[in-house]
Each structure stands twice: as C-alpha cells, then as structure tokens.
C-alpha cells in the first residue's frame, strides 16, 4: 500500500506521513516513510511517501500510489499521474480543483473546517487523516491517535485528536 501526501511545505504534509507510518507500525505492520528535501520541502510541491506492508519492504521507491492526498494545486498537478488506475484521490476542496482528472476521489473542505472548528488552519492535515481512515479503514483509529499524541506538541494533542475524530465522522 503506497500513500503519497502532497501540498505546500508548512501544511503538515510530512507530519501526516510520519504519523501514518508510525501508526501502521503500532498496528503491527511494516512501514517506511520518505520525504522531499530542499526547496520543495519549504514551499512549492512538497511530498511525503509512506509504504505500508504486512511483509518486509524491499521496494524503497513507490512505483505508483494507491492513495494520493493533495493539499495544493501545484502538488496535485505535479503528482496526479502517480496515482494507480484504481487508486483513491483525497483532496482539500478549498485548495485543489481536479477539473477533468478522472479518479475515485473524495474531498472535504479541510482547511475551512479547521479554521471554523478549531480556530486555526493548521489542523487541516489531521482532519484529512481522519477522513482518509474513515474511508479506507487502513489502520485502527486507536493506533493513529497514539501516533498523533507522540508527534504533535503536547499542548495541541487534544485539539489534534478532536480534529482526527471530526475527520473520521465526515462523509
């Protein structure tokens, strides 16, 4: 299972991948995570790849993505073709227009929701994680919550958990 998180640097793209990868390990699976470096990690089209498998992972480079998550238009344009034929596209409808791109796609207004519900845009990535997991049931929710608590600053942990749970309830 290959998952690619994409967006602008600063939207929590890499954090999303790290949280998801660690949650998969807590769930007894193997996971590796890689991320883009240099200028793209600080702006532009940033990406974070997570490979999750029950068996040992020999393939270090994802050869196509089962799930693509897009948080910015440039990142969507750059990476949309990495989505496998039956892959799932998740995107923030406030920030991305998919136009004629054909895929099994799911969108939520994550950034707007984060601002309305929690007063800050920065919870959008965690709302999206909840949404992805409610659609795919890839990893059990307790493992993701444990992973969130490990990786976000402790004073924001509860808000992030609430953001994750909000995402889980969305359709």
């Amino acid at each position: 299972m290959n998952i690619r998180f994409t967006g602008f640097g600063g939207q929590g793209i890499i954090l999303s991948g790290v949280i998801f990868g660690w949650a998969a390990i807590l769930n007894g699976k193997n996971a590796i995570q890689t991320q883009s470096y240099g200028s793209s990690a600080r702006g532009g089209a940033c990406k974070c790849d997570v490979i999750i498998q029950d068996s040992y992972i020999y393939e270090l480079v994802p050869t196509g993505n089962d799930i693509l998550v897009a948080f910015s238009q440039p990142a969507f344009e750059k990476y949309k073709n990495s989505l496998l034929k039956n892959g799932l596209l998740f995107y923030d409808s406030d920030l991305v227009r998919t136009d004629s791109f054909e895929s099994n796609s799911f969108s939520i207004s994550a950034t707007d929701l984060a601002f309305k519900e929690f007063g800050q845009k920065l919870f959008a990535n965690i709302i999206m994680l909840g949404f992805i997991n409610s659609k795919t049931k890839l990893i059990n929710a307790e493992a993701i919550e444990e992973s969130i608590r490990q990786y976000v600053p402790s004073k924001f942990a509860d808000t992030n958990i609430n953001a994750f749970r909000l995402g889980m309830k969305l359709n």
Partner: protein
Amino acid sequence: MTRENYLSKLKNRTLFIQGDEAAAYGALYAGCNFFAGYPITPASEVAELMAKELPKVDGYYIQMEDEIASIGAMIGAAWSGGKSMTATSGPGFSLMQENIGYACMTETPCVIVNVQRSGPSTGQATLAAQGDMLQARWGTHGDHEMIALSPSSVQESFDLMLEAFNLSEKYRNPVIFLLDGEVGHIREKVVFPDINEVNIHPRNISKEKVDVFGGMRIPPMIEFGQGHRIHVTGSTHKSNGMRDVVSQEAHDKLIRRLNDKIESNRDEISKYELHFTDDMEYLVVSYGASARPSMGAVLKLREKGYKVGFLRLITIWPFSSTIVKELGKKVKNIFVPEMNLGQISREIERFVSCAVHPVSKIGGVAHTINEIVYEIESEVKKY
C-alpha cells in the same frame, strides 16, 4: 545525566527514525563522546542528533568551520582518549581525504560517516547515490588498507555503527560508514537493545611508556595528558613515533604492517549475507540501499523459476574476495545492482572468471524491483 542513565531510558524502545539518526544512536551506544562536523545534506541529521544528545552523555559536539577542520578535531579527540566520529557527504568526504590518510598513518581509531549523494562535485545535493565506494577505499593517497561498512536498513544503520566503532578500536584504523542518501533518509522502525547486552571493544591503552607505532602488529595507544611524551606524525616514523623519512626499510616495515593488520584479518572483518546460493545458476551481489530491491528481485525471479542466489555485502572494504571467488565458480553470470556506474562490479571482476554485469542506476532514485528483474531476465534469456 550519565551515559548509563541515558541509555537505560532507550532500552528496548522502538522508534520510527531515519537511517542517519539510527547511525547517531548507534554511535552513542558504542560510547562515542566526541563529534566534530560541518552540516551537509543528506548527512545533517547525524550532526543534528549528536548536537542534541551528546551533551546528555557528557560528550562534546563541535561544529567546525569546514570538513578539513572537522576530521582534524576528531583525530585529536581520539588521541585524547575520546571515541570520535564525524559525518559528511561526497563534497565534504573529498575534503577529508588527506586527513583520512593521516588517521591511517597514525593508526587513529575513529568513524567517518559518508551519507552518499550524487556526484561528482556538488552533484545532486538532496538525492542518494553509491558513488563513493572506491573513494572510500582509495580516496587518500599512498598504500593503505581501509575498513568500510554499508547498511541496508535503518535498524542495520544502528547495529552496524556499533561494529564500526569496535573495528576501529580493534584494528586502530579509521572506519568509513558508507550510508547512502536513501537508507540515511528513510524512516523505519528501530528497536534499541539493552546496553548491557551490547559488545563494546575497549581501547587498548598502555599506562606504561611503550612503543605505540610498532613492536607488534596492533600496538596499544597512549592517551594525551596522561604523563607520557609522544610524537604523532603522518610522516614515516619508527615504532616510537619519531620521524624517519629517508630510510627505505623504515617505510617498508611501517606500511607493510599497517596494510597487513587489515589484510591478514580480511575474512574476520568481512561480513555478508547469503540467500538461495545452494542451487543457484546466477548470482546477484548488492549492498546498501540497492540490496533492498535486489533481494526483492531475487524473490520475484525465484517465483518465475530462475535459480538466482543473492550475496549482500555488509563489509565493503576489505573486500569479501573469499566468498566472491567461491560463489563465482558456481554461476554463469553475476549481476550487480548499484547506484553508480559499476564500481563494485569492477572489483568483483578481479576475483571471478564468469561474466559480471553491472545493473547501474544513477540520478538519485533507487532501483525498483521490476527494473532489476527486467535487466536480469533479458540477459538470462539470451542463453
């Protein structure tokens, strides 16, 4: 906090960290207490973690003005009783070459991490390569032997770092830790051991005034500041350390001993992993990041009915020539996936009479399993 307290908190913990960070934790377990370095992608995470953690174990982190100064400081620290390390990537590794020779000549135990990126020159700064395999062996001038290790996973980056420090102490030689940007930067699971179950090779220190540059194949060291006067020089020297730069015999005796202490222990230092070599007709040899998709390709080719074996080199230098020679007699072809244009492939050719095919990929992206399967299958189908 003492080192014991610090390490007891890590005991049996599982972390999701990068290969660079795992190498740094491995160094802390090995007793490293001095790091001098200059940041460079993709090796900066080693320095970053050492800067954060070394003070907690009463160690010293110092950011130097460049890589030449970094390795110089590290060698000095080793002679003052420290277990020292530096970390860099290609451009910095090139700058360090002169002092790597100085560390060989002065028999200084230390570890130099090279997280390889694409070169030559500044190349692709953020992307991975395995292009410094021969530079690690022959980068510094003159006759010398070298020890170099290359991990294939984040867990191995931790485990092998312990080995790197042990080998450097045992043989009084610098050890090159050949990570690549791929293994250095992926995050994977690492489980930390109990420090009480970790084997640490202690430095052989003499309290008495003895010859520290001869008299036996691997002489003991003396620590600076412990009351003995000692001369440490990169010039040819006698067993007491004093220069003798004109005598043919003195140079011959010293350099042959320095080479012999590694060469005569080649098989003991050499570590590798074998899979499916009993019934093989073809052999794949790989190491570091390339070994991952290589093993995946071997499994896939086996499913397709090809009798393919796999040799993963863990020790790169001294080269595992004994096993390569032995396996080379059993097969028609050897395939060598590596992220360079055939550096280790060329070394293998020296020891076998069968055909050796480099499966090269450069440009900063690791091989995929299918790329390796395709190259091997299309060659094998010719027969």
